[in-house]
């Protein structure tokens, strides 16, 4: 079962209420699904389509456009090792090989215990700190082999609590003050925008 659970559905309804058109909540809901399972499953996409009254194909179209929505399971800790030009010159390739050996998996795979997954990524814009990597999109700078070993050790020992599990996102849970909610302000005599009428089926 990886449909949205009751708690997620509650949050989903709250998110949807922020938008004048249900469909607009698609990306936040994908985040929500990813937060629940660590990745976005087919069932979750189906469920989101159901909730938003759109087709699963539309959900998949959006979901698959974004690299950071994972459509197959990843580890609790997703390691992105940069192989951009600066990191490459400063030994990213060796670091990647070292990571593969240490974790016993190849690039793109997940460890058996589901703890780590490994990916080589394009430049993550931290060239001054090369070679660098991200753990669940948190930066680790000037990473050496021993740094890497220490990082893995600390995660395994539960000593890196500042890094949340993959998929955790603070932003979908934010509470927005009522006066700053997105949507149509009920101004006297105001007409809804033209595009809203054109897409009346989603309202």
């Amino acid at each position, binding site marked *: 079962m990886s449909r949205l659970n009751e708690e997620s559905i509650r949050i989903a309804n709250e998110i949807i209420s922020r938008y004048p058109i249900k469909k607009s909540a698609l990306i936040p809901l994908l985040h929500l699904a990813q937060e629940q399972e660590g990745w976005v499953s087919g069932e979750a996409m189906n469920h989101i389509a159901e909730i938003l009254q759109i*087709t*699963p*194909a*539309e*959900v998949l*179209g959006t979901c*698959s*456009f974004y*690299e950071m929505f994972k459509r197959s399971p990843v580890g609790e800790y997703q390691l992105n090792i940069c192989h951009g030009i600066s990191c490459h010159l400063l030994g990213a390739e060796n670091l990647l090989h070292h990571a593969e050996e240490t974790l016993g998996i190849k690039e793109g795979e997940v460890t058996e215990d589901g703890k780590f997954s490994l990916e080589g990524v394009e430049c993550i814009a931290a060239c001054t700190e090369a070679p660098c990597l991200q753990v669940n999109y948190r930066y680790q700078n000037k990473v050496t082999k021993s740094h890497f070993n220490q990082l893995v050790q600390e995660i395994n020992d539960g000593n890196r609590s500042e890094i949340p599990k993959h998929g955790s996102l603070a932003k979908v849970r934010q509470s927005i003050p009522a006066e700053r909610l997105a949507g149509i302000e009920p101004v006297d005599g105001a007409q809804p925008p033209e595009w809203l009428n054109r897409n009346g089926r989603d309202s």
Partner: protein
Amino acid sequence: MSEILGSEDLINFTLNGEEVSATNGENLIEACEKAGVEIPRFCYHKRMNSVGMCRMCIVEIDTGRGPALQPSCMLSVSEGMSVNTESETTKKAQDGVLEFLLLNHPLDCPVCDKGGECPLQDQTIAFGPGETRFIEEKRHFEKPIPINENVFLDRERCILCDRCTRFADEVVGDPLIHFIDRGNATQVNTFPEDPFASYFSGNVVQICPVGALTAKPYRFKARPWDLEEIESTFPNPLGDRITIQSSRDQVLRFQGLDNDSVNWGWLTDKDRFSFQAFQSEYRVQEPLVRGGGLNKPDKNGRRLVASSWSNVLNMTTEAINRTEPNRIAIIGGSRLTNESQYAWTKLAKGIIGTDNVDGSLGDELPTRALLGLPTTTIDDVCTPGNTVILITPDLKEEYGTLYIRLRHAAIENSVKLIELSPIETGLSRTAAISLRPRPGEIAKVVESILTGEGPVEIGGIPKEQILQAHELIKGNELKIVYGKQSIAESDQPLIEALALLKKTSNSKFLPLVRRGNAMGAVHMGMAPGLLPGQIPLSEGLKTFLNLWPNLPNEKGMGTEEILQSAANGMIDVLFLLGADPLSDFYDPELVEKALNTVNTVISVDLFVNASAYHADIFFPASAFIEVNGSHTNIEGRVTPIRQKVTSPGTARPDWMIAAEIANRLGYDLNIERPEDAWDELGQTSTTQTKVDMDLICDSPDGQILESTGAITLEEIKEVSDTRPFDSYSLRLVLAKRMYDLGTITQMSPALKEFARTSQLFINPTDFKSMGLKSGEPVLVTAGEKNLTVLVVPNNKVPRSIAFGYLNQMGEDLRTLLVKGADSIDIRIDPTVKVG
């Protein structure tokens, strides 16, 4: 698109050095095309919004700031614009775009179905570089994957023009195919295990500019250069214009023909793939008679056997000659061409002398409701800013291209749709307001919408919703699209509603008929008391007397009365003219009894259908792809039907069969070719415009038969009282689904699997409160009738309604119909165990 314009201002612009004029604001690519310059394009399609995806239509445009390359499909033409489609810069840019488009496109043209009619191939030859500089590996995908039962997708050939996905989303509202993934990996696909289950999927094959989408029924069947084609009309109620394409006397496909007035080039899959049925091996190729003669007692155990035309014609004339005219009747004819309808009406009313002729199978609206109101056209209904009242069945199920036109009008041209439908339909979400009147109470609902007055609840609709609808229509001229919403209710409430709407100022009406050329049938007099040219029988005696020797004096019977009389032994010769009342009439028991009682049942049809199975004589008729003639659509628009292939065996056009019978009765029908029908009608009728076949073949929009005003819908004083609704019951709605067990659908291999099992759909809340369990058949009762059927919860059905589709597999829902009832209430008792 040109529709978004209000003004017709002409402006001048320079095209390749020449001054040309165009409508201000018109899309540049269209303006150039009208001026005779075709700019190459892949993604642009004139019936959809521009997206500028493919960049092929890039040309050099100077708007006063110096020439620059811009995509012509994304620009509106304006005064003083200078466009150069032939400059070196343009050519170089287009070459470059083409080279990019070809990077990943496999060069498998010799084995590609599109080869020969492929815009990419044509443009590569016309503009392309001839050799590729790309030496890397091309993109690879699994070669064609099915995206539904009839359409295959080859993603390697796809150039990502967005035509099919735009069509699915924008045009028909079924966004089940979408761009998936990103960048170089982008592909068109469905969600896994969720096929492109659209009633309109065949259109994406027609508009695909490469061979990425192909239709199973046409795959590897022919090369475009071997095809011959002719423009014709598909005989459905809308008269969708088509191109019939054939090779070696075999029709291989129907393509939609782009025309402004009707279907814009679109077709439903049901119509597009039905060409298979017309060439089915089950088509009857020679006349049949019941073995050994016509005596009823011998019928059992005697099968239909092949015979000769002279034999069946003689038997038919003998049967007619020994029978009183008023004991002869004709049912059906709504599927014939106008000319064949005229011939059969003349045979019946002018020569045999019986008025017992009815093109309807008891499920069309009465003639006065079809011809007696000020009519309008589809274009007029879809005019920007209009207010349209829909009292129709689900247009997406039954009138596919009208659904597309109205959807476009509502979304792109802000036409306000006010939908009055007992269940949610394909248009409900597009409508400005969609109300759920209880069956049988439409007149009350319309009355209160028009007046804005009434009790707290009218016909199942809360007063505040009625008031919202009232606000929407207030002060507006109305366009009303109407048709029979359910066969489980009488016509009276709808007729009263129409009478009320007719009184509003300047309202115009568009009627829907249920069978292909039913509109032609009423124009050609195939109804009791009616003669061709909208002339009532009583008034037509003098006009027709010179040409039609034996006109009946009294009004005859309609289908229901004919069947009743037949069952009582009052009819001796019954013609079924392309009609299958056993499957289509609301009371199959009565039909069965009638067919078994009548001495001589004569069926004129393409197939031995359920009713024809009871026939004593069977005439094999030609299908519409095998005859010349014309068709009348719901607007009264007459468009040509043209012969493309020869009939199988000795099958003959319907009009020819009528002429042969007349000849043997000793009369000359005076119809030697289809056009003769119009010539004669032109002589007899002073009011109806003469239709010139040459003229309608040349005009893309055909010719409209205007209402003469001779037949009018009666006025009403007040709306009849409705039957009180008891809250323990569910009111029944029975309508058509696009795919059913109908002969044409079942004879098309591409479509036959789409019929479903009979079910009754009810609101999930009702389902729960009745304590029903999913997947269990339950006992349903309507008065003294009962039926055991699967009941399924469905959100589209409002509370207190039970909805079902007709003519599906398994249980026959017609069993629940109570004769003569204005509406039918059923009860479901979950405590009765079935089994």
